[in-house]
């Protein structure tokens, strides 16, 4: 996917000005957060479980090469062809080669964020293949030609009227506006595609090293469809998704659905281990897995490594006040919200997403809910520090900080400057004592007024009082 992450300010300004989007984001509100809170009450030992989950993910990451090799050996044993892709372009090339060798015409996809990273759909469509997204949210976005705005509810920013318009225009059916009918319509439209597709493409929520399995965690059943009906299955997932054992999976599955949608378990959890057996009459006859680096290995061993623990539940964005206002598409690439503010610069380079680590109030809600205890605010601060060190901040900001630095070291000038500033601000205040516009900082005053400073400064008060008392 082509990144627009370096235009974060324009993106978010546009999203904030979009009345429909703002209304849709208000409706989204705290629904996921509420559901999560209720579901977590079922777990008496939540904090201990989060410790375990973080430890499991760290164990995978600190010996990532060994677990990947173990996974590869077991997967090969089960008849899976294992591919490794260093870049997104390589992922697309491998999928196209598999498709061409197997004479594939139609591809059905279940949700895969990694394929969004690589821009797989465009590559496949460009090569003349018919590609159909089958997750309802992804299907809506395919019709709308838009990128996803949330990890687990990709069309969260669309309302029912918008979906009704899209379906009526693309299905040439009477427009219906109740949600169950629209879901039914999608089922009816997509069923034939499942039945006559040649290839099914999925992501992978986890890889299990001890069995060589790909794990899919889904609700709609489309993940099962695309791995049961087409004759070729390709799973695409990041190298960091490997877990050593099935017991590790058990622990993480207690947290993933609860953190994501507030479900104690999703409707389907599927462990896929290879192609159909000789005596089976269904299931893919070819099974492939593509292990994708795409910038992940460069994050290992750095201060940002904890971000690789992420299990893509979306809780951080569901609790983020910034995300809830600007929506996922403002982040400009595949991963929105707090985790996106880390992963996008980590995978694409900080110079490609300079403003994302700034897109936070550092309120810390994301860290409090993260099931694998990623210290998101600390990682954002780390990236902020790196962007200063690499000289990536705008000149006005650098100049401002430099001036402040000099003033703070020169108390006499500091006092003189603050007197001038107080005088200036009180001159700018209106009758109610509020400053409504600050030149150069109008972004700040657009939505609120600043009270003008009143009375004397702390320094002068202190001097006055200490003279009196001495």
């Amino acid at each position, binding site marked *: 996917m082509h990144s627009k992450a370096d235009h974060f300010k324009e993106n978010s300004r546009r999203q904030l000005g979009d009345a429909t989007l703002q209304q849709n984001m208000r409706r989204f509100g705290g629904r996921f957060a509420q559901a999560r809170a209720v579901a977590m009450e079922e777990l008496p030992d939540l904090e201990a479980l989060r410790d375990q989950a973080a430890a499991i993910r760290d164990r995978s990451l600190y010996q990532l*090469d060994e677990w990947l090799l173990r996974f590869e050996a077991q997967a090969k044993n089960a008849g899976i062809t294992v591919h490794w892709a260093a870049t997104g372009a390589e992922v697309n090339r491998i999928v196209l080669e598999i498709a061409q060798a197997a004479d594939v015409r139609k591809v059905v996809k279940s949700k895969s964020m990694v394929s969004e990273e690589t821009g797989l759909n465009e590559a496949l469509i460009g090569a003349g293949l018919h590609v159909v997204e089958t997750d309802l949210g992804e299907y809506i976005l395919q019709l709308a030609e838009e990128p996803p705005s949330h990890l687990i*509810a990709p069309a969260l920013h669309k309302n029912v009227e918008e*979906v009704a318009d899209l379906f009526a225009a693309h299905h040439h059916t009477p427009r219906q506006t109740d949600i169950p009918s629209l879901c039914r319509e999608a089922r009816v439209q997509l069923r034939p595609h499942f039945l006559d597709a040649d290839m099914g493409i999925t992501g992978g929520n986890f890889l299990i090293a001890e069995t060589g399995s790909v794990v899919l965690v889904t609700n709609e059943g489309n993940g099962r469809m695309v791995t049961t009906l087409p004759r070729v299955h390709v799973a695409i997932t990041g190298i960091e998704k490997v877990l050593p054992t099935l017991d590790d999976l058990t622990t993480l599955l207690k947290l993933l659905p609860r953190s994501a949608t507030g479900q104690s378990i999703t*409707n389907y959890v599927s462990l896929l281990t290879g192609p159909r057996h000789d005596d089976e009459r269904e299931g893919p006859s070819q099974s492939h897995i593509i292990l994708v680096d795409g910038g992940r*290995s460069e994050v290992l*061993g750095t201060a940002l490594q904890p971000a690789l623990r992420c299990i893509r539940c979306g809780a951080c964005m569901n609790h983020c006040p910034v995300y809830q206002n600007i929506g996922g598409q403002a982040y400009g690439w595949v991963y929105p919200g707090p985790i996106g503010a880390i992963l996008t610069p980590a995978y694409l380079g900080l110079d490609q997403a300079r403003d994302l680590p700034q897109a936070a109030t550092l309120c810390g809600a994301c860290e409090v809910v993260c099931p694998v205890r990623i210290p998101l605010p600390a990682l954002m601060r780390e990236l902020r520090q790196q962007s200063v060190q690499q000289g990536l901040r705008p000149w006005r900001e650098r100049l401002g900080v430099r001036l402040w630095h000099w003033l703070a070291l020169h108390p006499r000038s500091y006092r003189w400057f603050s007197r001038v500033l107080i005088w200036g601000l009180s001159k700018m205040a209106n009758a109610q004592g509020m400053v409504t516009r600050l030149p150069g900082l109008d972004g700040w005053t657009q939505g609120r007024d600043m009270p003008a400073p009143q009375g004397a400064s702390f320094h002068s008060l202190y001097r006055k009082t200490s003279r009196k008392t001495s």
Partner: protein
Amino acid sequence: MISSRDLILQRIRARLHGAVIHDDTIDPQPTSVLPAPSLEVLRQRFMDKASALGSMVHLVPTRDAVPTILENLLQELELPLQAVCWPALAPWLDQHHTRLNLFFRPAEPADAVGVTGCHCAIADTGTLVLRTSALTPGSVSLLPETHVALVSEEDLVSDMKASWRHLAREPWARSVNFVSGPSRTADIEQTVVIGAHGPARVIILLYGSAP
């Protein structure tokens, strides 16, 4: 030219070399010391959880009563008295004389009802554990709008961890599916709608071990 596989492994090793290995004081899997719950507890918990997730659970006193109950149920729900079944169920269901028209094969698009057994069932989450094989094709629990699962009380386990031990008794299947209720989506305005791509109705006949 170096392969991507070697390149990726090389990068990982270079990055992790000299990295401080995390203090492993937290045992990722503390062993549970709880005794296995009684059958009554398991049964009740399974029924509560499965019902909460939208499955319809019916208790059937004996295994022999299952075919008649199935027939009555399909009639009550105004479904055709016709179903696709796991071939593994043929020796059991075929010997009973009912008005049911049963086909023992993988599911086809026109099948309205699919009947399966289950490998084991998890009480903690109300989950059916299904393994695919020639005799237990996955499509039977996926394509039909109504999925009926025949579950023996003897196959109830407490949690997912216990189900791994159960599964390890047989060779690993191509696909192991944990099914917890009818398929659903909340992708439009976060409104939960039952019946997405998989079955819209899951009926569980939980039968006892009495002869």
